[in-house]
């Protein structure tokens, strides 16, 4: 594998971003997570928090170390020595058109049958890259390119919490009611964010998500007692 060296950018006195020239998804995501953990460990007395994106990690400093120190650390770090442990989660999704409000229009636009869409969407494992956009919103990679579809030009005023949707080459779940421009193809009874739990989410970056089709009856039964999911 080509050696990917991150670039260090200083953004003001207490903000540093390290970035890679490519998206750190798939196998590369593990490297990003390992480096993030290694930085947190090495500079634990200097850091307030780190945030991640597809190609970058931002570090908020309590007190900033010398940048040569960070640069040297990134050159030397043996990130593979950091043990990672990931889970696979099964998320029930009801792809009924009553809940998947855009499913019919989306299937027409894509020239796929609804059954094909359900099969394509639920046969892949998706990788959780990081959280962003809304509390508990997962940036997932792994959508079958056949399902990619441009976002709506005019976003919907409100999309229900639990809606499973496709926008561009991404799929995701709205953790709370929110305006949004993605095509809603189904709904899950599983809560994705609970502010009364700490941590308020159940999955961590690097974990995998799988969608399992359920009937309307099952959806209604499970919605009555929403629970965080279990590891497969």
């Amino acid at each position, binding site marked *: 594998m080509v050696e990917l060296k991150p670039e260090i950018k200083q*953004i003001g006195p207490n*903000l540093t971003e390290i*970035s890679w020239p490519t998206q750190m998804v798939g196998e590369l995501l593990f490297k990003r997570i390992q480096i993030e953990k290694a930085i947190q460990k090495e500079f634990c007395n200097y850091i*307030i928090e780190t945030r991640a994106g597809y190609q970058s990690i931002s570090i908020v400093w309590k007190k900033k170390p010398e940048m040569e120190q960070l640069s040297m650390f990134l050159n030397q770090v043996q990130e593979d020595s950091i043990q990672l442990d990931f889970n696979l989660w099964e998320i029930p999704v009801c792809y009924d058109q009553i809940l998947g409000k855009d499913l019919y229009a989306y299937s027409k636009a894509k020239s796929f049958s609804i059954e094909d869409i359900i099969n394509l969407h639920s046969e892949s494992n998706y990788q959780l890259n990081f959280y*962003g*956009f*809304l509390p508990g919103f997962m940036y997932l990679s792994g959508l079958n390119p056949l399902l990619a579809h441009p976002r709506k030009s005019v976003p919907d005023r409100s999309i229900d919490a639990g809606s499973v949707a496709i926008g561009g080459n991404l799929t995701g779940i709205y953790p709370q009611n929110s305006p949004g421009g993605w095509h809603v193809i189904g709904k899950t009874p599983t809560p994705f964010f609970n502010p009364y739990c700490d941590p308020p989410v159940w999955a961590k970056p690097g974990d995998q998500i799988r969608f399992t089709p359920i009937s309307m009856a099952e959806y209604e039964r499970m919605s009555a007692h929403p629970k965080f999911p279990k590891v497969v």
Partner: protein
Amino acid sequence: MIKDWTFAKILASGPGTSIRDLGRVGYAQFGVPISGPADLQAFQWNNHLLQNKENDAQLEISQPGFKIQFLAPTLISISGALSKVILKNKLINNTGLQEINFEDILEIGNIESGSIIYIGIKHGFLSEQILKSRSLLKGITKTFQIAKGDEVPYFTNQEIPLLNRLSQVKWNSQYLSEEIVRVFTGPEWDQLPPTIQKSLFNQSFHISPMKNSMAVQLEELISNEIPGIASAPVFPGTIQLTSGGKLLCLLQDAQVTGGYPRILQVMEDDLRILAQKKPGQKLRFLLVKN
């Protein structure tokens, strides 16, 4: 000393009144905005004067017509924007410490300079703490703003605190009319052509009506040929350049990642200048070396 629970009743409030403490530090990894005070220095000043803990919660008010009744004695401190402050139907100092007696009614009238006022209280307001913070936010706390009829708890000592007026420091409100906002270059700065880079510093920008606790949008358009970026971390003070050429300055309730190029980052000390501006007011950016 006796420390009893009591309440402040909200008798009137415009939209956008909030409770703020220093926010949810460390929860960005779950997609949770920080939700600290928009004007950190004003917030810190109140808690300092009240000899509170630095994280003690305060009211953040951004509309005139706010009216609150304190049920029991306490000490409050006001800072931030300058407004007409009325206590028991009498005009009082619009910043600094103020003793409150049983059932006193405090009103915030016209906001004359700036746009956000902080009311701190001895021992802090005691609304519900969610994810280690009392700051109100949609999707996190039960309500996302303070409204008429709400009762906000606080501690009282059951007696009017002694206040040494001579020892009071004055609130320096000069920053409310400051037009220079110091900025650093952001991660995507190098992707802007030099002519555009220069144009950001030799013109004034006006605050548009699109201003809330998540972001403030500026009126003037900047030509933008940078494609969107793969979602990346953003912070309060990050200035994004949207695909339509609008400048979006993120504030304390902004989401934690964004897909627009991040061209500038406002210096933390100057974020309050931006936050206190009203729609129509202007500012200029001054580049500071990273």
